[in-house]
């Protein structure tokens, strides 16, 4: 339970497209991490590489000091619950939910069958239903069942809430937090629906340009960012000494997105200071000026 997953200087390309470029990451045990990145940022590739489901071009991934690749001891402790699809290598994914559950019971060393049954009931899933006949949300529910019931010390979810309605998304995060409170195992959740998940993430990881551009405790990170708005001259004065990440104008007012704000920040200027939420922080850092 107290093993770290470490990725050191990892590179991964698909033909000429470099997806991961000298990436370093350490996942400490007993935390819930949120992995955030834009479409095509390489989140799934990174998670695949961390769990030996995808090959590295160079670099190393270790778990408890041992390489993850083809290592039984490491793989026994890791569950990467991937997004399911209605199509597989053989055409339509005609496997039933029960097939996945049975396979999971064979491969996941810490598998909790009773918990899986309970989750199936909670999500109203029929185990005899084929994957290709499920809705996108129901497929997500299956991946949630597999991930949670795996009871793996390191459990990774790739887009677990995609296709889920807001009620089910809330239920997922409640289940995740309940499980975390009970077992203290490590979770990594990649998602695009940031704001709803922000409260569950102890730390967030921003992936951009093939590298980790930020890894920090969620609250600590958010507290460093703010919008300063007002007349241009006043805003400039207030932002002195802060890192200005973005500038925009709304009529006569200028808005700066800044980083480096200290708790209780009150500038000596006629400006409004608005705190950011995690989604805004993400957009500011990874939006490349496209949006503020």
């Amino acid at each position, binding site marked *: 339970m107290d093993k770290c997953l470490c990725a050191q200087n990892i590179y991964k390309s698909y033909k000429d497209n470099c997806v991961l470029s000298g990436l370093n990451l350490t996942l400490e045990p007993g935390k819930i991490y949120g992995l955030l990145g834009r479409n095509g940022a390489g989140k799934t590739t990174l998670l*695949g590489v961390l*769990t030996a*489901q*995808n*090959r590295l071009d160079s670099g190393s991934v270790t778990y408890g000091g041992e390489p993850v690749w*083809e290592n*039984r001891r490491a*793989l*026994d402790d*890791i*569950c*990467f619950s*991937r997004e399911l699809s209605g199509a*597989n*290598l*053989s055409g339509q*994914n005609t*496997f039933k939910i029960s*097939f*996945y559950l*049975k*396979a*999971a019971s*064979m*491969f*996941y060393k810490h598998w909790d069958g009773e918990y899986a049954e309970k989750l199936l009931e909670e999500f109203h899933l029929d185990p005899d239903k084929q994957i290709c006949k499920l809705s996108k949300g129901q497929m997500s529910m299956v991946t949630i069942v597999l991930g949670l019931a795996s009871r793996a010390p390191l459990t990774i979810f790739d887009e677990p809430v995609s296709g889920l309605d807001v009620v089910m998304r809330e239920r997922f995060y409640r289940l995740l937090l309940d499980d975390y409170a009970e077992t203290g195992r490590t979770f990594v959740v990649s998602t695009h629906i940031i704001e709803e998940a922000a409260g569950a993430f102890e730390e967030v990881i921003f992936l951009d340009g093939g590298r980790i551009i930020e890894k920090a405790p969620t609250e600590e990170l958010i507290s460093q960012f703010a919008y300063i708005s007002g007349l241009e001259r006043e805003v400039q004065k207030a932002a002195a000494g802060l890192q200005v990440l973005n500038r925009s104008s709304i009529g006569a007012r200028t808005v700066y997105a800044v980083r480096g704000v200290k708790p209780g920040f009150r500038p000596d200027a006629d400006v409004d200071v608005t705190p950011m939420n995690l989604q805004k922080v993400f957009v500011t850092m990874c939006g490349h000026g496209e949006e503020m």
Partner: protein
Amino acid sequence: MKALCKYMCFTYLKYYVGSLFALGAAAALLNLLFPAGFFQSYFEGFSIYSLVMALIATTLLTGSWFNVALSMGARRRDYFIAMQLSIIVGVAASMVLIYAMQFISEHAFSKYGYDFMFNPGMAPHTVIAVFAAQLVGCLCTVAGMWKKWLSVAVCVVYMMLAVTVLLVQMTALEGIFWFSLPWILSGVELLFAAGAEFIVLRYMNRAVVR
């Protein structure tokens, strides 16, 4: 490894051996119910059907079943070894059933003169054919990921070769063909199998979950 052996029983062996037994039972039952010979070919050609089924059943071994196992943390080399073991079990099950069908043919249908496509004296050829068929089935999926037509081509070429082997071995002891011909053809099948094994192993070692 234990988990993978269980997984193979739950997936490949269940489907392959199960469908073989179902086919055998259906062929025997149909011939008992309609002894006039209407379903004679189902019975006589059982060894060819088992080849076809071996080819079909194994396509998932390097396809979806492999993908699911890998996504749940199975090791590539363990999967490859478990796959080899299950292929051996599959060959054994095929042979047991072919012998059983031949026995039934001789005893239940001898008066109709069924010409069962299996020559016990040349059983090694059938073993090689079924063994190679399973590996070629695995190869077809791998080839299909690269080029679809290649998958079909491999399948067709192998089936033509294997059926020729089975037909030749039936009559080999009667001296119609040059006696070494079945062995030469089986040698070609083994080369096919070795090539398939090499390509499948290479694919598995580099496989990525999709």
